[in-house]
């Protein structure tokens, strides 16, 4: 069984940045986005993350699956929540509003009145844009960041050596363990085990996964003893370690972090200082009400 990372070198503009600078920028933008409910500001952030997406030189074929997943999630769950209940949003969404459509159903003597208001429609649009912005901000990371750099990146962000090395090691183990899994799957199939035709209910199906999960796990644990011994023999952890790859901040990385900080501070000033950025409904949209 072959396992492949979604990353490949694309010679994109994004790949020229230090991964640490990109992480800092992403989190600063995230903490900026969640301060806003005003669609005008949210559209700015959406445009910003789409520029970042374009700079990653990603193709539709590569990201189609995640786009569909994110759109179903956002439109299906979030918008439905906003349209039918409006809860979680600003107060005016929950408290009445300008009715566009209302129907009354009688279910077992109880009156149910799903109501769509201008405010709820606008809240749903704002929520979709906000969720999409957050999703796109982060889903490009596996496609545009080299997995071999994660350990040194997190070490460079202040995570202790042992934790960073453990993360690095995890990325390296994946192909080996995927191969072991493939070997085990073939061995079990030779014994008549058919993973594609697991019968029974959910519990029975989960139990039937044990012949695959247990041998691979126990084999990995046994081989882990050898790796531990090898590392101990090389005096692992006695001194700060060096890394094969070294990261150095360049001017463009400071610019990126500075841009993230500027966006974050400006967001705080707008929301806390000028009291802007709260939920907004344009006056012209109120004409939709009947």
């Amino acid at each position, binding site marked *: 069984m072959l*396992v492949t*990372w*979604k990353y490949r070198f694309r010679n994109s503009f994004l790949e020229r940045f230090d991964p640490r600078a990109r992480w800092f920028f992403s989190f600063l933008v995230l903490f900026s986005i*969640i301060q806003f409910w005003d669609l005008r500001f949210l559209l700015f952030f959406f445009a910003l993350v789409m520029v970042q997406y374009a700079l990653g030189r990603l193709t539709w074929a590569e*990201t189609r*699956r*995640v786009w569909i997943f*994110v759109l179903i*999630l956002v439109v299906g*769950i*979030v918008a439905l*929540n*906003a349209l039918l*209940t409006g*809860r*979680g*949003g600003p107060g005016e969404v929950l408290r009445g509003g300008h009715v566009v459509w209302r129907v009354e159903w009688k279910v077992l003597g109880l009156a149910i009145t799903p109501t769509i208001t201008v405010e709820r429609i606008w*809240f749903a649009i704002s*929520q979709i844009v*906000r*969720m999409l912005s*957050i*999703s796109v901000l*982060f*889903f490009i990371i*596996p496609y545009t960041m080299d997995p071999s750099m994660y350990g040194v990146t997190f070490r460079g962000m202040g995570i202790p050596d*042992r*934790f960073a*090395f*453990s*993360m*690095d*090691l*995890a*990325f390296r*183990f*994946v192909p080996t*363990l*995927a191969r072991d*899994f493939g070997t085990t799957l073939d061995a079990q199939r030779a014994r008549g085990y058919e993973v594609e035709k697991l019968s029974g209910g*959910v*519990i029975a*199906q*989960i*139990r039937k*996964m*044990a012949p695959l*999960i*247990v041998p*691979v*796990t*126990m084999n*990995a*644990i046994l081989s*882990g003893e050898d790796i*531990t011994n090898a*590392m*101990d023999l090389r005096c*692992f*952890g006695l001194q700060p370690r060096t890394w094969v790859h070294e990261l150095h901040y360049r001017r463009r990385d400071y610019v990126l972090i500075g841009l993230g900080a500027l966006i974050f501070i400006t967001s705080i000033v707008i929301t806390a200082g000028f009291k802007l950025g709260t939920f907004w409904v344009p006056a012209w949209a109120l004409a939709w009400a009947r």
Partner: protein
Amino acid sequence: MEKKSLWVFGTREVVYAAIGAALYGVFSWVTNFLALPAAGNISLRPAVAIPMFFGIAFGPIVGFLSGFVGNILGDFLSGWGFWWSWSLGNGIMGLIPGLIGLLGAVVSFKEKSTLIKAEVLVVIAVLVGMLIPSLLEIPLSGIDFNTAIVGYWLPAALSNIVNGLILVPILMVAYDAVVARSGR
């Protein structure tokens, strides 16, 4: 015999955290075909038993890293992207079973009392671990509390509890035989 600290993170823990994370990532990737419908960004993952089991066997930090890094790996391999709040929740799902040492020394992994303690911790771990990212969706996605509970927490918690309750004891009994054989 010197009592080993629950929070030690030496060479052995570094290696097993990495193995746990890689296993969780790979198993999540191969079991993605068991998608649970109508549960937001949650899929039915028998692999969730891995961080819980690694927590019990190697301590809370190993359990946390197995869950946290493993979820990132699984999402990366499947192409889902990076959902940091759910990775954090998966980390907590591995951390809490690792506290089994606080309930008394583990002499044997197949002893009935140890298995019962592990099962109780698995349930607590899932309930707490899935509650945190579900509640984080309120400020992040702007959903309401009811949607967070019904749309995210309940389906995720129920499927993970079933997976954990079935697979963790099986892994513990198998590991007990490995421990007995290797003398560790």
